């Protein structure tokens, strides 16, 4: 593995950490005050900083460091994470993401923005509460060094008084050589990761004058000792001018694997209350080479326990001292009552950690290959069943039972393999919250993004392709959908607008809803615009819904003024097209004064498609179900000739062109008689309806999509291929291309396969 690969892994991890960071901050923003959430946020920034340091990404490190310092204030309850603070932090998370991307792709970042945020973060860390009415970006907080503050250490950090409750009183720390009381209780993880308490204590002793007491109360009887557990804790009293940060930095790499409390002396009474621990005198000299000292000096322990310790000591056989004995006293034993509390604590922390399920990263190609193979397995299994049934009419029951089990197994394998590609929509939704923040800042609006169902799972490719149209729609919703705060107040609404993004599963598809509580679509103006653009006739009688849907029309995107007038419309045709390209549909419903709701219905995967299997000129074809509006059996009276070759079918008093699929694909020379076939009413990209004539409908089926281009070439009118249960290839119709061809654009000229000789 070379450096670049390691770097790539780091950046992948960064992405996860950034997502974690943002979701944690958003949770805090919603009022979550769980210390674990704060820790998760802190951890994310901390790991990015650590990794960035290893790769010498200085910009990233310095920003992450300032960010981390401020987060630490929140973690230690010195800074109340209110809305204003979180606003700064969320923006900092954005900048951190930008810096990460810049480090990865070599792009540039808005330096003014990151400098500004560094200032704001430092101001927060210095205890300056941001003004409630702080302007979005610039001129927010005064420079950091404005206040007279206690001594600043070399990292630009100054110690701040720490206590549990009386923090608000703003008590200043003692300036000359404060004494810190430190409780250090390692978990077994600490040792498992190769850390050594001895070394940590030795480092700590370098900070100042130190006295240590070892707490051995948790040490169980030898026969009950769990060799993997950690039983000792240390209570340290340290006189230092280096500050709390320096003390904590000693434990920097151990802090997740131990209980660590650092407090200024004076809070001792309270500390004792909370920590019913009997300190044991413990001399630093014990850390050195004298083995027997602690046990001899120990005088407060019960006699029985002393024996046990002595035997533990000898069991450690030449362990150089007691401190090291803790990890090395690995007699096989059960956890005992005294260790029970520690066990419970570690169980609790494990529970918190298990919230994030362990995952592995896999190359998408490998998953695709697996999905392909399973698709084959399913088809093969179907073929096998068919031939067994054909060849062995009264088949033995054991063969039939075996086949049935095989069928169940393959179905289960298929489901599980498909599930590998499925991912929650969460990352996309999270990205949207950033876009909302940015657009809100730009437009001076106050917006709250509410997301629901972000754990709804959908195929990775769908997720990837969802981001773009969604971004566009969110922008529109904030920029045009929501009114300005003044207008909202005037309308009697909450000045803060709400954008709601919801995902849910509904009948085998994923439905994503984007709702805003803005002004809704101004139908009069949309209508007027459509008339001006010759999209509709001046006297056209359109339903509200039809008017709303006009904004998806391509004509609307070119006129940029519409965004100011109608409130919607810029590029919505592009959105619609990309949703349709995904095999999805988009709908809008709007209520004047109450806002608009966009509803997108998308397939769960792009590897499988719901299709109508039809027969055309003895060929089996598949028509994507999403394109079909309805099917009907044409009657002779409904068919009307139009000119030399065109035919129309009347459906509820409107005329729809008939398209013979067999003819347009060149499968037959003359048009089939419509009365003998079935008409599929389809809707194409441009919104135009066509009645596609096929010979017969075989049924609906989910089909696995296979590429034609891989070995052949693009075929106009054909979107892809699939393999049917009998092992034969069936073609999947490209409805849009067929409809376009029926408008007079021949399929043939696009044909890229020509005689090469």
């Amino acid at each position: 593995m070379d450096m670049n690969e390691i770097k790539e892994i780091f950046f992948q991890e960064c992405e996860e950490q950034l997502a974690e960071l943002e979701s944690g901050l958003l949770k805090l923003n919603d009022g979550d005050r769980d210390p674990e959430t704060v820790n998760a946020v802190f951890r994310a920034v901390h790991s990015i900083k650590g990794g960035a340091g290893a790769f010498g990404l200085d910009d990233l490190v310095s920003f992450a460091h300032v960010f981390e310092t401020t987060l630490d204030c929140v973690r230690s309850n010195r800074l109340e994470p209110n809305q204003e603070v979180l606003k700064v932090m969320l923006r900092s998370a954005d900048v951190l993401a930008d810096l990460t991307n810049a480090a990865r792709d070599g792009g540039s970042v808005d330096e003014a923005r990151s400098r500004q945020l560094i200032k704001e973060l430092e101001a927060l860390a210095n205890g300056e509460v941001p003004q409630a009415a702080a302007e979005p970006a610039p001129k927010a907080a005064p420079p950091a060094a404005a206040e007279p503050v206690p001594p600043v250490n070399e990292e630009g950090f100054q110690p701040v008084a720490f206590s549990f409750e009386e923090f608000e009183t703003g008590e200043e720390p003692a300036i000359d050589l404060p004494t810190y009381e430190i409780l250090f209780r390692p978990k077994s993880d600490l040792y498992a990761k190769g850390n050594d308490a001895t070394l940590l204590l030795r480092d700590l002793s370098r900070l100042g004058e130190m006295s240590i007491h070892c707490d051995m109360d948790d040490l169980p009887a030898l026969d009950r000792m769990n060799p993997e557990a950690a039983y000792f804790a240390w209570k340290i009293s340290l006189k230092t001018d280096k500050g709390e940060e320096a003390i904590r930095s000693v434990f920097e790499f151990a802090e997740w694997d131990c209980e660590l409390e650092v407090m200024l002396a004076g809070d001792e009474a309270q500390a004792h209350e909370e920590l019913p621990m009997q300190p044991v005198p413990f001399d630093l000299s014990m850390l050195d080479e004298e083995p027997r000292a602690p046990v001899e000096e120990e005088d407060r322990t019960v006699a029985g326990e002393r024996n046990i310790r002595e035997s533990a000591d000898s069991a450690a056989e030449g362990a150089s001292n007691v401190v090291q004995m803790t990890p090395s006293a690995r007699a096989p034993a059960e956890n005992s009552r005294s260790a029970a509390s520690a066990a419970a604590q570690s169980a609790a922390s494990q529970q918190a950690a298990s919230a994030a399920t362990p995952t592995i990263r896999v190359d998408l190609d490998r998953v695709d290959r697996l999905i392909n193979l399973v698709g084959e397995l399913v088809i093969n299994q179907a073929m096998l069943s068919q031939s067994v049934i054909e060849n062995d009419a009264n088949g033995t029951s054991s063969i039939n039972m075996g086949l049935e089990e095989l069928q169940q197994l393959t179905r289960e394998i298929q489901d599980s393999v498909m599930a590998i590609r499925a991912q929650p929509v969460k990352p996309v939704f999270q990205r949207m919250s950033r876009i909302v923040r940015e657009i809100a800042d730009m437009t001076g609006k106050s917006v709250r993004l509410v997301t629901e169902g972000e754990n709804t799972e959908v195929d990775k490719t769908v997720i990837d392709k969802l981001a773009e149209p969604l971004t566009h729609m969110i922008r529109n919703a904030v920029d045009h959908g929501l009114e300005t705060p003044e207008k909202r107040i005037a309308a009697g609404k909450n000045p803060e607008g709400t954008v709601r993004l919801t995902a849910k599963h509904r009948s085998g598809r994923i439905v994503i809803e984007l709702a805003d509580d803005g002004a809704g679509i101004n139908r009069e103006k949309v209508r007027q615009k459509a008339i001006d653009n010759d999209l509709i006739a001046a006297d056209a009688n359109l339903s509200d819904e039809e008017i709303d849907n006009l904004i998806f029309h391509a004509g609307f995107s070119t006129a940029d003024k519409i965004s100011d007038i109608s409130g919607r419309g810029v590029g919505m045709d592009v959105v619609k097209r990309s949703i349709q390209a995904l095999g999805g549909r988009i709908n809008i419903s709007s209520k004047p004064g109450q806002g608009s709701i966009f509803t997108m219905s998308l397939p769960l995967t792009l590897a499988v498609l719901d299709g109508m299997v039809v027969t055309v000129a003895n060929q089996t074809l598949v028509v994507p179900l999403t394109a079909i509006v309805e099917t009907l059996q044409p009657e002779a009276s409904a068919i009307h000739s139009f000119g030399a070759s065109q035919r129309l079918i009347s459906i509820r008093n409107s005329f729809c062109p008939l398209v013979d699929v067999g003819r347009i694909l060149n499968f037959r020379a003359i048009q089939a008689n419509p009365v003998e076939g079935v008409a599929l009413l389809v809707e194409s990209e441009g919104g135009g309806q066509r009645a596609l004539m096929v010979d017969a409908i075989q049924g609906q089926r989910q089909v696995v999509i296979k590429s034609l281009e891989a070995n052949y070439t693009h075929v106009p009118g054909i979107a892809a291929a699939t393999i049917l249960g009998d092992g034969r290839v069936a073609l999947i119709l490209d409805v849009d291309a067929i409809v376009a061809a029926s408008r007079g654009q021949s399929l043939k000229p696009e044909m890229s396969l020509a005689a090469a000789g």
Partner: protein
Amino acid sequence: MTYAAKNLTTGGRELIAFRVGDQEFCVNIMSVREIRGWTPATPMPHAPVYVLGVINLRGAVLPIIDFSARLGMKPAEPTVRHVIIVAQVKSQVVGLLVDAVSDILTVSDSDIQPTPDIASDFERSFARGVLAIEGRMICLVELDSVFPHEERDAA
């Protein structure tokens, strides 16, 4: 296969020989993935006459070229006795419908004679040379020019 045995020692290359009508052709064995029997193909709309359609090759969609028609000879009427040579050409896998596979030849470069100059441009475009083996004439085929390519010669 005395001829093959003779050439194995000289470290020549291996070719697969096949028959179409009364003519013999051969292709480099390295580009051949497998040889399989004929199965009915799904016709493709607007395909050239020599593209018989596509079949399912363990999940991949495999186009089938009628070699005879491709060379401008009489189109084959595929029966169960026909075979498909599945060959890899660059990144694509394509099936070649032929009457029968006849031989595996091991030849050295010096055995390959240049295409006789009576050939027209069309024949020259797919023939890389001819082999005279035990009284037979076998045409060495350039697969690259036989198969359709994406974006080639878009009309």
